[in-house]
């Protein structure tokens, strides 16, 4: 129970700090800011959590239990940062499903769907975002990749093609 208390306390405080920060001012690079807040903030708050566990009259945590708490903070942070990318930028699939489910219509036809997507230029928006982030370069109407490590994209494609043996392009 002491692990649960320490973990709940750390995540609760960090999430409240995140909400307060985001209400006051949105960071320019939101996902890296979230990672720093939860990982660095988690380490900074460890002694506070240890003190609260002791003050609650529970047995002090062993080093193995602290590792368990750290793993919990890390796992939650990764899951939340992944979710956050769907908050920052709309998911085309989820937007589509919500549109089809709205209004109690007897289904949605292809023309209505095309009109819906026309108002939401997902591909153009991602192209602009990639250029803003310096990953793509546009020169004389041609797009090319900038010199960039693209570690995550490479890992995603390697896992998809080599580990899962999926050959289609996705997207």
């Amino acid at each position, binding site marked *: 129970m002491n692990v649960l208390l320490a973990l709940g306390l750390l995540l609760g405080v960090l999430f409240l700090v995140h909400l307060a920060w985001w209400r006051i001012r949105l960071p320019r690079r939101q996902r890296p800011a979230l990672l720093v807040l939860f990982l660095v903030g988690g380490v900074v708050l460890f002694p506070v959590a240890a003190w609260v566990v002791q003050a609650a009259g529970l047995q002090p945590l062993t080093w193995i239990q602290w590792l368990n708490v750290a793993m919990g903070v890390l*796992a939650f942070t990764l*899951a939340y940062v992944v979710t956050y990318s769907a908050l920052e930028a709309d998911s085309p699939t989820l937007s589509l499903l919500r549109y089809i489910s709205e209004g109690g219509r007897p289904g949605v036809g292809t023309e209505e769907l095309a009109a819906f997507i026309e108002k939401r230029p997902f591909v153009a928006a991602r192209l602009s975002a990639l250029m803003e982030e310096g990953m793509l370069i546009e020169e004389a109407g041609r797009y090319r990749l900038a010199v960039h490590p693209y570690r995550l994209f490479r890992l995603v494609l390697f896992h998809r093609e080599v580990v899962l043996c999926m050959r289609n392009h*996705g997207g």
Partner: protein
Amino acid sequence: MSEELPQIIHLVAPVAGLAVMCGMHAMMCRMNPHAPLLNALAGAGMVGLVVVFLAGVAAAWSGGDWLISGLSALLVDLPIYGCLAYGYANFVNLGQSSVRVRIYRELLDAGVTGVAGEALRATYDEQSMLQARLERLVAAGDLRLDAGRYMIGQRRLLVIAAVIFGLKRAILGRRSEFMP
């Protein structure tokens, strides 16, 4: 060591569950390449869940208190495993449906000369993205196609959509990136 063993098992349980999930998922994809992505992930995730449950039993059996071990497995190990499994599922989904990864792949295939804007739009634009998604959603049973009209099939992704759009409003105060 006997006192620490249950704690070590609780520490390792979510990672072991995730490792088994990844292995099972790779095996399922190789055995049935055309299976809907979400179904393969859910199946592999359930196997990982069983591993976490068995680890909880092993922790109790190795000298831990049955009640404490049960509660630890339920309230700490399972949520940690849930977060790790969710992260893996999203990692896999990036390859399947991320617009950015798809653009990266098109440009990677084009090499150093890159690709003309018109050629890129001819291969991958909003309409082809829409078509690919509709096909996947129908194949997975999330949508039904009846007399040329798309209807909701299974509601599982709608639950996720409700959570995501609710969080978006609560944290960012907007409904959509295109409609602030």
